[in-house]
């Protein structure tokens, strides 16, 4: 019975980790102190000799446990042979020093081998304390590696900074957020659809789900607004009525967020926006699906949907702050800033803030999709121009400015041509330089690039390239949905 059980092995491993963590912290402290002393004294100075002796002692204790080990900075922490060092008051300064200095040197740390002799260690210390990193991390790494080589320091090896790895982590994070954005967007769509069905058949909606999905949209929006905006630019849905509600919700939230609304008010705005057309569920289904243009009777009926919406809300919910705000957005989203529009008010007044926001989002999405009210589909620049022409009449001037600033004059998801004859899809706006957004370059006049060749460029960093025009992707058979995942 000499073999160890799995529990014993795990226990031993745990013990070793605890020991290494303690010794690692000691090493970091002593190494930091030794580098400071080396910066001030000669190698034969007693002060340095005392300090280097402490360092050797610290290293020996580790070598007693591990023949070779690494000391690395990774994701804001220091690790000794994969064991994360806990931060403590006595080692904070030392850790911060290495966490900041090593990436600048183009390294993430060093590996140490057991047969390290004291002279090698001294050379390493004096080189490290004197090293002045340049601008380029890559060059710095090579300088460190080459110099250690020249000094014949063989038992201590510099490890290159994992910049690529961190970048890829960043990409993974972006991918995760985009996946979350997609999931939340389609959940919102499902909730709108389910609400519409419930409203038609049972005269009720699930307000808890509605709120929750709006909260989800806000959470994603705060993390990556562009991912959410890109989803609103996709128009190839079979049943666009529901998508319109989700898009209006997202666009309203973007406007509210840029205006500076807090979470609670954003949530209330989102609920109002998501339900802004709920009154349409009370209209004859034939009218909603009518393929022809509307006649006067159709319009008269259609114009009742805000009133139907308010009635529906209060039949099913009690009048509280959230429903009050939602119902005014529902009632007034077709009333223009100058009180024209419908329903016709007896007392002319400027619509409430939520209604003014939803009205802008509704108009923009309706005009850019061309799928609501049989409008002609417009490109974002045409729609923005049209809306800007109606400032003060149809739209609140300041809110429209915030809206266009937020979605960009080249909104995310728009297909654009560029001055270098390349074709791109706007992937992220640039509020401080709206004419220079980030673009996914998908091809040129000779053809579309392979998926792996699609690159993202930030036009604010490419002074030679500018957007020349926006184009209707559908018209030129460009399938924008194909590029959604590329980030």
């Amino acid at each position, binding site marked *: 019975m000499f073999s160890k059980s799995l529990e014993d092995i795990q226990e031993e491993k745990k013990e070793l980790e605890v020991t290494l963590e303690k010794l690692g912290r000691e090493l970091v402290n002593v190494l930091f102190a030794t580098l400071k002393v080396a910066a001030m004294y000669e190698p034969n100075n007693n002060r340095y000799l005392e300090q280097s002796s402490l360092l050797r002692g610290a290293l020996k204790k580790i070598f007693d446990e591990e023949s070779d080990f690494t000391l690395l900075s990774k994701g804001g922490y220091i690790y000794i042979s994969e064991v994360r060092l806990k931060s403590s008051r006595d080692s904070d300064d030392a850790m911060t020093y290495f966490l900041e200095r090593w990436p600048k040197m183009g390294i993430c740390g060093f590996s140490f081998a057991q047969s390290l002799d004291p002279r090698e260690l001294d050379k390493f210390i004096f080189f490290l304390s004197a090293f002045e990193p340049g601008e380029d991390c890559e060059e710095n790494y090579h300088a460190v590696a080459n110099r250690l080589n020249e000094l014949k320091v063989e038992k201590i090896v510099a490890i290159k900074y994992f910049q690529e790895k961190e970048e890829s982590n960043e990409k993974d994070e972006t991918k995760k957020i985009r996946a979350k954005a997609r999931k939340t967007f*389609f959940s919102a769509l499902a909730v709108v659809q389910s609400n519409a069905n419930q409203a038609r058949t049972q005269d009720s909606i699930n307000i808890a789900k509605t709120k929750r999905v709006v909260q989800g949209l806000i959470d994603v929006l705060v993390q990556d607004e562009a991912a959410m905006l890109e989803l609103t630019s996709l128009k190839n849905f079979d049943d666009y009525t529901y998508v319109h509600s989700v898009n209006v919700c997202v666009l309203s939230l973007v406007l509210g967020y840029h205006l500076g609304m807090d979470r609670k008010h954003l949530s209330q705005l989102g609920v109002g926006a998501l339900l802004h057309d709920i009154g349409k569920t009370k209209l004859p289904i034939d009218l909603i699906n009518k393929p022809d243009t509307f006649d006067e009777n159709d319009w008269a009926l259609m114009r009742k949907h805000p009133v139907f919406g308010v009635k529906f809300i209060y039949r099913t919910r009690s009048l509280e702050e959230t429903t*009050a705000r939602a119902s005014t957005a529902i009632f007034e989203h077709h009333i223009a800033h100058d009180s024209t529009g419908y329903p016709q008010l007896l007392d002319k007044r400027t619509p409430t803030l939520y209604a003014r926001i939803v009205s802008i989002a509704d108009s923009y999405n309706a005009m850019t999709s061309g799928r609501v009210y049989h409008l002609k589909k417009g490109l974002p620049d045409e729609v923005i121009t049209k809306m800007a022409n109606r400032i003060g009449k149809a739209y609140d001037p300041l809110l429209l400015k915030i809206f266009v600033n937020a979605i960009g004059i080249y909104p995310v998801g728009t297909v654009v041509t560029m001055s270098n004859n390349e074709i791109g899809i706007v992937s992220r706006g640039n509020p401080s330089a709206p004419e220079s957004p980030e673009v996914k370059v998908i091809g040129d*006049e000779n053809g579309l690039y392979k998926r792996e060749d699609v690159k993202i460029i930030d036009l604010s960093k490419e002074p030679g390239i500018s*957007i020349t025009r926006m184009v209707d992707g559908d018209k030129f058979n460009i399938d924008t949905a194909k590029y959604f995942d590329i980030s």
Partner: protein
Amino acid sequence: MEKFIEITDEDIAEVSKASVKNVADVFTLFIKTVKAMLVYPASSKLPHQFKESLFSSLTNLLEELDELTFKVESDSISYNENSVYQAKAKTENFAHPFFRDGILEFKFKRGLTVEELNQFVDIASQMTRSALVDDDAATLLWESGFEHISYELMDDFLDIETFEYGTDKLKTGQTPSETDLKGLFVNNIDMNLTEEDFDLNSEKNRSRRLPSAYLNVEDDVSRFITNIANYDESEKAAMAEMLAADVRFDHIKYAIDTLFEILNMETDNAGYVETLDLIAKVGTDFIKLGDYRSAVAIIGRAKELGQVLSKLDSPKHEKIQIFIGRFAASEKIKILVDHLNKAKDVNYAEVTAFLKMLPWQAVDPLVWALGELDHYPARRAICQALETLAVEHPDVLGKGTESPRWYVVRNVVSILGKIGDRRAFAYFKRSIQHPDIRVRKETVMSAARIISDEAGEFLITALQDQDEKIQMMALREIVERKIFVAFGHIGRVIANKEFKNRSADQIRELLAGFAVLGGAEAFEPLQKIIMRWSLMPSEKYDRLRIHAVRALGYIRTPEAMKLLEKIACSRNKKLVDIARRTLNKVKRGEDLV
């Protein structure tokens, strides 16, 4: 030799047991804090003391354990699979509000701030208090945006099959042809744009600074686009004001106005009635939620509309009257009673304002409500409202004297007295017979408030009440109101040979009342009492004489004063003192009592 301390499994189990106990203790404190929030008004110190204590215990525990995760079930809450809370009754279940809203667990983390914990406790008590509020626990937790409290939600909305969509489904599969792609760029030429148009630094564009896609827009739009990136100070101020104004804005009142606006848009009868029904439902919801201010707004708007329609002689006027009448119906008052019995921190001024707006038809159900309400301020609010509502209909209110509950009868009698209508005496005749003395007392006081001949007669009758306290109350009211017709009746009481056996206070008050009401006419009978010679002197006679001497002071005729002076100089020591004191008081104009 080094000694190692051996740690056994039992030791570990012991430590873990202790930590579970600590957690359970903290959770019990949490429940107590929530209960304190539910029971005590916001102004009470107790909930705050509980909160402070909870914060201290919880943060100490978090220092040790870093984080605490509580799993939520329908009627229990557990920590590390150990139950730390088990609901004892359906009516008091602190787990349910979280469970109902899909919260599977909540977690407190080290670094928890006092504000976060207080807000969490507020949410827990708010959710436990009422299932009627629109905001569910998940929403309130989300809105709080806690840094050191997290929660896990049941992802139920994702049950709906959403991934049949996905972005993949949106892919059209279309691929542009070479012509398409060339066309993209050829179109530039159609726009008559030159190289200069695309050069943002060109002389032409520098003046306009327009992005190339917007080169052909009009000047107004051009200004809009070129200024899109920056907000000047006035715009920033306007944005802040926009948000502040929105917070100040009364959205509920605005929504009520909107509902009435919709009502006015209705052109056909069915639509009008349907919308009125809807507004009535909204009003009922307000009562359920205890938002009496908004209920007042609804009835206020309806009354305004009713007045306009009445002037226009519109048939809709009647519909509005019926609409207002619906709030006076028994079932609505039952809802109100239900809320007032359950709610905490009720604004009773708003309740009163709401009730006062109801039509008189609410009197009967409100009298019923007086018997059902648990809290005194709620009953007071109803009484105040009834004083207004029953002014024209004391008969309806008076029926309340038939209530089997003594306190209802007393309240009704009190309100009848405050209204002051003489029709009340029909009901006082019944209530003065009430077995409960409190009702009879209130009847005497209320009857006295109504200035009328009936009041005098009624009070005189009350002098014969079986209870001496009622008799004295009636006497005081008679004297206060100078009901002179009662003089003879009091004289008969005094003349009764049993009079001397009454209590000292009664004798004093009756003789004083007799003197006040009778004036000079009372002199002779009083003189007789004072001068009565007795073979066997007794304490009872002495007491009678003393109070009769004092009563002389109320008469204030020369005869009475002369007699007092005479007594003051007499040899009867017991009478001398009281006569002197009475004379002094009369001279100084002081009250004799």
